[in-house]
């Protein structure tokens, strides 16, 4: 009896899960994510026009500015509100990466600066860096070998 509950748990609770409004969520994610990217384009054009950046390097200040804004919004508590509304629309842009770091750092503030903020900062963002570096390394090796023989 207990065994069957254990095995059928996923089916049993399925009825009680809220049904996600997939279409509505996608529209929200599209609009918010799109707005963030359009704002990024504004920043890109601004840095291209006023500072000594090329098309290749302009990504750096654009991303840094977005990260600064997102970190401040996280500190003020507004990014969570946007995140609840937009879902992936706020998580997929680079701002979501900054939000995950700032919110993890804030959450563990009570445990101190070293053991709280510094230790837990990469709690969520670490996965992005780990998988980014590992996949870039693997693809890099493959391409390097490929380039050698071609």
């Amino acid at each position, binding site marked *: 009896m207990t065994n069957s509950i254990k095995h059928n748990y996923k089916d049993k609770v399925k009825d009680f899960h809220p049904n996600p409004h997939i279409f509505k969520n996608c529209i929200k994610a599209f609009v918010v994510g*799109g707005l963030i990217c359009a704002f*990024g384009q504004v920043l*890109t054009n601004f840095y291209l026009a006023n500072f000594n950046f090329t098309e290749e390097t302009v990504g750096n200040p*654009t991303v840094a500015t977005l990260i600064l804004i997102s*970190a401040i919004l996280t500190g003020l508590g507004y990014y969570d509100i946007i995140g609840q509304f937009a879902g992936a*629309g706020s998580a997929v842009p680079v701002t979501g*990466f900054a939000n995950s770091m700032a919110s993890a750092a804030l959450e563990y503030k009570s445990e101190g600066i070293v053991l709280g*903020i510094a230790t837990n900062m990469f709690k969520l963002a670490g996965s992005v860096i780990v998988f980014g570096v590992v*996949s870039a*390394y693997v693809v890099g090796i493959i391409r390097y070998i490929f380039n050698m023989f071609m």
Partner: protein
Amino acid sequence: MEYLIAFVTGGLICIVGQLLLDILKFTPAHVMATFVIIGSILDGFGIYDKFIEFAGAGATVPITSFGHSLLHGAMAEAEKHGFIGIGMGMFKLTSGGISAAIVFAFFVALIFKPKG
């Protein structure tokens, strides 16, 4: 016009992320990790550069560009120093974003009080 292209492409990438969240029940961390891997693989085939040329910030702002620039820095350095260069150049292009994220997150955590 380029604002519209950035809006639409960035939005479409977010829709893919939302579908992963809703249908495959990914967590946001899984979505971000998946997108970074996709970005580096696309750059491995040389596709992502053309995508950035077309979409501008619509391609550089989503997290996929992180994987792209990791690989890009690695390959640029690998041309100069050979095999070891892959590790040396890995963070060359993304260091601006990562150091900004660390510094700003640190100061935000110092200044603000946690809410909720």
